C-alpha cells in the first residue's frame, strides 16, 4: 500500500476540535431531509473517522481512498439528483465535499478553510427556508462556528468550551446593529444568476390537476397556505372564497387546468364592479406554482403578475419563497355579461368523448325541467344534493371508470371536488359554460393578531357557470350538502369524525388540546410578524423606505445614507466600548477648581506634566511667577490638604475651618483672585 503523504499534522486544541465537530454537525443537520440517504451514512462515517483520527486510533485516508471518495461522491449526487446543478444537487455536492474535507484537515489552514466553508454551507440553508425558526437556528450555529474560529486562534490548549462561545456571542451581538443597517439600507440587487429554484420536493398544496381524492390528501395537511391581514373587518366566511386556479378540462377522471383559458388575458372592458373594495394583504407561503390566491374580483399590487381571462392571477415567476402582495377585492362584480369568446365557450362546454351517460342525461333532463334557465337548473341540482342521500366525507369510496355516474347514482359520498365536478359536468351536458374553481375557502381568524390563517386543509373547489346578461355566477355545491363547511370557514367540524386523521402529531389533533392550540397560535403570530416585517422586506419595500428617508432616491443618496448609518453604529459601539472599558471618573468639586487653576496657567503656556505632583508643580510655577508665589502656594496647599489630609485647613488665615466645603470655597476664591 502506498503510504499517504501529507504535511505535518497541526495539533488542534481539544476545545477547537470539539467545537469544530459540533459546528459541522449543526451545519449539516438542517439539510438532512433534502440529502440523498447515502450521504447521511457518509456523514456518520466521516465524523467517527475524524474523531478517531483525533484520538490517534486511526490514520487519515490515503490518497487513493480520497480520490475514490470524491469520485464516488460526485457519482452518488449525479445518480440521486440526475444532475449536479441546481440548489438541491448543488448543496448535496457541497456538503459531500465539505464532509470529505474533514478527512483532509492536516494544517491549521485546512481547519480555517473548514470553518469558512461551514459559514457558507450554513448560509445555503436560506435557499430553502427563511422562516423565523430557521433564522434563529442559523444565528445560533453561526455563534458556534465563530467560537470555533476563536478557539482555533487561541494558543492556550486547555481552555473551557464556553469561553470561545461567550466571546463569539458577544462579537456577533456587537455586529447586530450593523447587520440591521445593512439589512434595511444595503441596496437589494436582484440575483445575477438564476438558481432555478423550482424545487423538486413535492410540496403539499393545490396542484393544477385534480382527481377527486386529491383534495382529501390536501385536507389532511395542517400546513399553512397563506395569511391575510385585513385593513378593516374580516369578512364572514361565506365571502372568503380564495380563487387560485381554474379546472377547465375534464378527461373522465381528472380535472385539469390545461392553460387554454389561463393564457388569454382578461378584458377590462367586460368587467363591471360596484361598491367599495375590501383591502387586505396576502402573505403567501411558497407554493412551487404561479398562482396568487385572492377573493374575486381583485386587483393586485406589489407583485409582478398577469391576470387571465378566468380572473386568476399568475405571478410572473414561480412562488418558491414567501411573497406578499396588496389586494383590493370587489365582492360585487360581473364579468363577460354579454358573452364568452367562442374558443372558450367551446372549452367550457366540452365533455369527454364518452362515458358517464346517465349523468349527461340527468343534466339534460334537469335543464329541460327548469325551462332552460341555468340558474333554475343550478337550484335544482342544489336541491337534489340536499334532499337525496348525499353524504359529505373526506374518505369517499373508490369510483369506477365512469366516475361521475358512480358518484351520482351509486356511492353518493364525496367531498367538494366530487360535488363541484358533478355540478360542472351536468351543466356542460346541458350546454351551459361551466368551470370548476380551485382555491381555499374560509380560514381561521387569529385570536391575537388581526389576521386570517388559511391552511392547506382549507382547500376547496367550487363552480362558476355562465348566465346570459349576468356573466359568471358562483355556486358552491358543497354548501348544499355540508353547509357548516362553508359557514364555519374551516373543516374543523367535519374533520372531527374522520378516522383517517389520527396521526398523533398532526396540527389538527393538537388543536384539541387548548394549551397546545394557544401555543401554536402564539408561535404563528410571531412567525407572521417575522414574515410581515422581515421576509417581506424586499426591494420594493426598500425603495419605499428610501423614498421616505431621502425623498429623491439616487445612488449617491443611498451610499450617503448607508455610510452615515453604518458610521453612526460603529461610532456608538466604539464609544460604548470606550466608556465601559475606561469609565470616565467623576471629578469632585476640588478637582474641578484645580482644573480651573491649571486652565488659567495653560493659557499662559504653562503645562502641568503628566504625573507631576501638585506641590512640585506649585514649586515650578512659583519660580516662573515669583510675584504670585504666595497665592499659588496657598492654592496648591489648599487643594493638597483637601484631597489628602484628614483636616483640611485654610492655610492663609492659619485657622481650622469647620468643613471641607469651606476649604473648597476659599480655594475657589483664591483661584478667582489669581490674575496672571
Amino acid at each position, binding site marked *: 500500500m502506498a503510504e499517504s503523504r501529507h504535511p505535518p499534522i497541526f495539533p488542534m486544541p481539544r476545545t477547537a476540535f470539539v467545537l469544530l465537530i459540533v459546528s459541522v454537525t449543526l451545519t449539516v443537520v438542517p439539510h438532512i431531509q433534502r440529502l440523498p440517504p447515502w450521504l447521511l451514512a457518509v456523514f456518520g462515517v466521516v465524523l467517527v473517522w475524524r474523531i478517531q483520527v483525533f484520538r490517534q486510533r486511526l490514520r487519515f485516508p490515503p490518497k487513493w481512498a480520497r480520490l475514490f471518495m470524491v469520485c464516488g461522491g460526485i457519482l452518488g449526487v449525479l445518480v440521486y439528483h440526475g444532475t449536479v446543478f441546481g440548489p438541491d444537487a448543488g448543496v448535496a455536492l457541497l456538503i459531500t465535499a465539505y464532509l470529505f474535507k474533514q478527512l483532509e484537515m492536516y494544517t491549521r489552514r485546512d481547519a480555517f478553510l473548514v470553518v469558512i466553508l461551514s459559514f457558507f454551507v450554513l448560509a445555503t440553508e436560506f435557499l430553502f427556508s427563511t422562516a423565523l425558526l430557521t433564522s434563529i437556528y442559523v444565528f445560533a450555529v453561526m455563534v458556534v462556528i465563530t467560537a470555533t474560529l476563536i478557539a482555533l486562534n487561541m494558543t492556550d490548549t486547555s481552555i473551557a468550551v464556553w469561553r470561545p462561545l461567550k466571546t463569539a456571542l458577544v462579537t456577533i451581538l456587537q455586529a447586530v446593529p450593523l447587520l440591521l443597517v445593512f439589512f434595511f439600507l444595503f441596496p437589494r440587487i436582484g440575483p445575477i444568476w438564476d438558481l432555478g429554484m423550482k424545487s423538486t420536493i413535492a410540496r403539499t398544496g393545490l396542484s393544477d390537476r385534480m382527481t377527486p381524492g386529491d383534495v382529501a390528501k390536501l385536507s389532511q395537511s395542517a400546513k399553512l397556505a397563506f395569511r391575510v391581514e385585513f385593513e378593516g373587518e374580516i369578512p364572514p366566511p361565506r365571502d372568503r372564497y380564495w380563487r387560485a386556479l381554474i379546472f377547465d378540462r375534464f378527461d373522465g377522471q381528472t380535472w385539469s387546468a390545461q392553460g387554454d383559458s389561463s393564457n388569454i388575458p382578461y378584458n377590462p372592458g367586460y368587467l363591471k364592479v360596484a361598491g367599495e373594495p375590501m383591502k387586505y394583504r396576502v402573505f403567501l407561503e411558497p407554493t412551487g406554482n404561479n398562482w396568487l390566491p385572492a377573493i374575486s374580483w381583485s386587483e393586485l399590487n406589489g407583485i409582478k403578475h398577469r391576470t387571465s381571462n378566468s380572473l386568476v392571477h399568475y405571478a410572473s415567476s414561480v412562488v418558491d419563497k414567501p411573497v406578499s402582495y396588496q389586494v383590493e377585492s370587489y365582492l360585487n362584480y360581473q364579468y363577460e355579461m354579454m358573452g364568452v369568446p367562442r374558443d372558450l365557450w367551446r372549452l367550457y362546454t366540452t365533455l369527454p368523448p364518452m362515458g358517464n351517460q346517465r349523468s349527461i342525461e340527468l343534466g339534460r333532463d334537469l335543464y329541460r325541467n327548469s325551462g332552460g334557465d341555468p340558474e333554475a337548473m343550478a337550484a335544482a341540482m342544489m336541491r337534489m344534493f340536499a334532499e337525496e342521500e348525499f353524504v359529505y366525507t373526506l374518505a369517499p369510496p373508490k369510483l369506477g371508470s365512469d366516475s361521475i355516474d358512480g358518484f351520482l347514482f351509486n356511492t353518493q359520498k364525496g367531498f367538494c371536488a366530487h360535488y363541484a365536478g358533478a355540478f360542472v359536468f351536468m351543466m356542460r351536458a346541458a350546454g351551459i359554460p361551466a368551470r370548476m374553481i380551485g382555491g381555499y375557502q374560509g380560514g381561521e381568524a387569529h385570536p391575537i393578531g388581526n389576521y386570517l390563517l388559511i391552511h392547506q386543509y382549507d382547500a376547496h373547489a367550487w363552480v362558476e357557470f355562465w348566465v346570459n346578461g349576468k356573466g359568471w355566477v358562483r355556486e358552491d355545491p358543497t354548501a348544499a350538502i355540508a353547509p357548516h363547511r362553508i359557514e364555519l370557514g374551516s373543516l374543523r367540524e367535519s374533520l372531527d369524525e374522520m378516522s383517517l386523521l389520527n396521526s398523533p402529531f398532526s396540527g389538527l389533533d393538537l388543536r384539541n388540546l387548548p394549551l397546545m392550540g394557544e401555543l401554536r397560535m402564539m408561535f404563528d403570530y410571531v412567525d407572521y410578524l417575522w414574515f410581515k416585517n422581515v421576509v417581506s422586506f424586499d426591494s420594493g419595500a426598500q425603495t419605499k423606505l428610501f423614498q421616505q428617508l431621502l425623498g429623491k432616491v439616487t445612488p449617491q443618496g443611498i451610499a450617503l445614507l448607508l455610510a452615515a448609518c453604518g458610521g453612526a453604529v460603529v461610532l456608538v459601539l466604539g464609544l460604548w466600548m470606550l466608556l465601559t472599558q475606561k469609565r470616565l*471618573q467623576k*471629578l469632585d468639586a476640588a478637582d474641578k477648581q484645580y482644573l480651573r487653576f491649571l486652565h488659567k496657567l495653560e493659557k499662559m503656556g504653562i503645562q502641568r506634566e*503628566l504625573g507631576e505632583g501638585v506641590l512640585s508643580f506649585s514649586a515650578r510655577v512659583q519660580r516662573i511667577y515669583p510675584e504670585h508665589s504666595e497665592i499659588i502656594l496657598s492654592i496648591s496647599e489648599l487643594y493638597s490638604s483637601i484631597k*489628602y489630609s484628614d483636616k483640611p485647613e485654610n492655610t492663609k488665615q492659619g485657622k481650622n475651618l469647620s468643613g471641607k466645603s469651606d476649604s473648597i470655597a476659599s480655594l475657589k476664591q483664591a483661584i478667582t483672585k489669581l490674575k496672571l
Partner: protein
Amino acid sequence: MSTSVNVLIDALAKVLLGKEEQIKLALSCLLAKGHLLVEDLPGMGKTTLSHALAKVLGLEYQRIQFTSDLLPADILGTSIFNQTSTEFEFRPGPVFSQVLLADEINRATPKTQGALLEAMEERQITVDGHTYPLPQPFFVIATQNPITQMGTYPLPESQLDRFLMRISLGYPDPTVERKLLKGFNPRHDMDQLPAVTNSEGLAELQHKVTKVFVSDALLDYVQRILAFTRQSNRFNFGLSPRAGMALVQCSQAFALVAGRDHVVPEDVQAILPAVAEHRLAGSQDVTGHEGQRLVDSVLKQGDVIPGR
C-alpha cells in the same frame, strides 16, 4: 516628634555628605519596619550608611561579611557540646542582634542567603528543632554589588521581595567629592556619632508612622499606579498586593520624615523607585535593572489628578 526625626537626619548627614534623599529613604524604610537593601558599586558608602543608621538609632548591631564559603550556621549559630554539663548548648550567631549588617549579600551561596532571608521573614530561627525568637526590633540592612559583577549569586525575585526598599547611593556631587579628597574620613566621624534615640524611641516613631493619614484620593492614585503596572504590556508582571501595601507604608513613613501628618502624591513618587524597582521586571528584562525605566514610565502614566 518630627524634631526627633530631623535630629536623626542631621546626624546622619554629617557622615554621609550630600546624600540627604537616600538618608530619608533609608530612614523611612526602617520606620516602616522594613528591611533595607543598599545596592551600589564598592566604595560608594554603602557600609558607612548602614553603620551610621544602626548607631544613630541606638541599636545593637552585628556585621557579617558574606562570602561564597559562608554557611547558614555562621549566621544563625550552632549547638556545641558542653563537656562539663554534658549537654548541647546553643551558641547564637550574629543574627541575634537588633540590626544585622549583611555586607555583600549576593556573594554568598543561595543556601546561606536563604537562611538569612528566612530569618528576615519569620523574625525567628529554628536550629536543631528549637525555635529561637530574634530580638525586637530586628532589621537587616543588606548591601550588594550589582549582579552583573563577577562571582555573585543574584537574589531571586521572591527574596528581593523581602526587602521593603532597594536604594542605591550613586556618585557624590563635585563639592562633596572635593571634601572627601581633602581628607574627610567618614569612618573617623562615625565613632563620635551619638545615639540620638533608642529602641523605645524607635518604636514610638514606628507607631506614629501608622497614624499618618492616607486619604481616599491618595489611595486612588496608588491604585492607578498598581493597575498600570498590571495592565501595560511593558511589564512581565504587575505589582503584587504586598507591593501595594509596601507603597502605602513607605509613603506614610516618608511623609513623617518630611514632617507632614498626611501623605501626598509626592511622597508616593519619592519612594516608588525604591519600593518598586526591584519588584518589577520588564517583559524583556535580562539584567534585572530595567525596573528603573519602568518606574519612570509609571510615574509619567499614572497622573496625580484624576479625569485627565
